[in-house]
């Protein structure tokens, strides 16, 4: 008699689906980056910092260089979020950056402040 093919237990495949946040999960690659470093894609992190009130919009596009302005932004972010102030993208800072959060800017003057019409 023909029986349906059966997969021996040892050969079964387990697929782990990482259901975590895809929006900012990629920022983990900037871990331990410090002033002067050039990491491809860091402009995205600068856009994040701009969105939440830590970096002004530059005259041209954001670049991938960890410059002095970005270091100041990291320090301000660490102070505002009650993190150890190192000026570096250390574990605590990257972890905080990747955490889900409220969409309001941390710079109160840039918040969604509109009159009702």
């Amino acid at each position: 008699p023909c029986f349906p093919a059966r997969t021996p237990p040892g050969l079964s495949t387990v697929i782990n689906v990482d259901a975590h946040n895809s929006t900012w999960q990629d920022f983990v690659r900037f871990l331990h980056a410090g002033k002067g470093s050039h990491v491809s894609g860091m402009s995205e992190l600068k856009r994040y910092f701009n969105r939440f009130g830590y970096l002004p919009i530059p005259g041209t596009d954001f670049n991938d260089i960890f410059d002095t302005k970005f270091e100041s932004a990291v320090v301000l972010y660490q102070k505002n979020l009650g993190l150890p102030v190192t000026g570096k993208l250390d574990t605590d800072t990257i972890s905080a950056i990747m955490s889900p959060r409220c969409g309001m800017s941390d710079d109160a003057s840039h918040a969604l402040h509109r009159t009702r019409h």
Partner: protein
Amino acid sequence: FAYFYGKPRWVRGSRKTPMTLTYAFSPSNMIDYLSSSDIRAVFRRAFCRWESVIPVNFTETGNYQSANIRIGFYRGDHGDGEPFDGVLGVLAHAFSPENGRLHLDAAETWTINFKSDKSKVAVDLESVATHEIGHVLGLAHTSVKEAVMYPSLSPRTRKVDLKIDDVKGVQALYGSNPNFKFSSLLALENSFNQA
């Protein structure tokens, strides 16, 4: 605690009587996997927490257009210039006084009970509602990690109780609810810290 630029707050009626602010849910922008009554109960509790510390009453109304605070769940670009970004990332946002808009990202896995919702990315609706109501009242983000007004919230985390930082901030805007006692909040926080 911190305020928005210009320290905007709601100003309604006379200063002698408690202010009443109405709130309503969008008739067309809601989620369907949580019941309407559950969502309403969650927001009722969230409003009650703020109501217990300031002389402001929050009343639900069926008239969405005329409500002071208008609550809805939206996906992606929803027309206010602040598009949502899908699962996690930005969870919600709200506008400062006296605008009244409170928007939640419909793409999140909103939950009211972690015991029954096993999703790794489940977000506690009541915690986010309590935080966003703080913005609606005029509070900006704080650097106090334990406070409700701290900007981030991990999945499967519940943070609904107002801390001293939240209470001091909102009371500086609206005054204190005559029935509120700081000593009870201090005792509660101390017992929590000791535990």
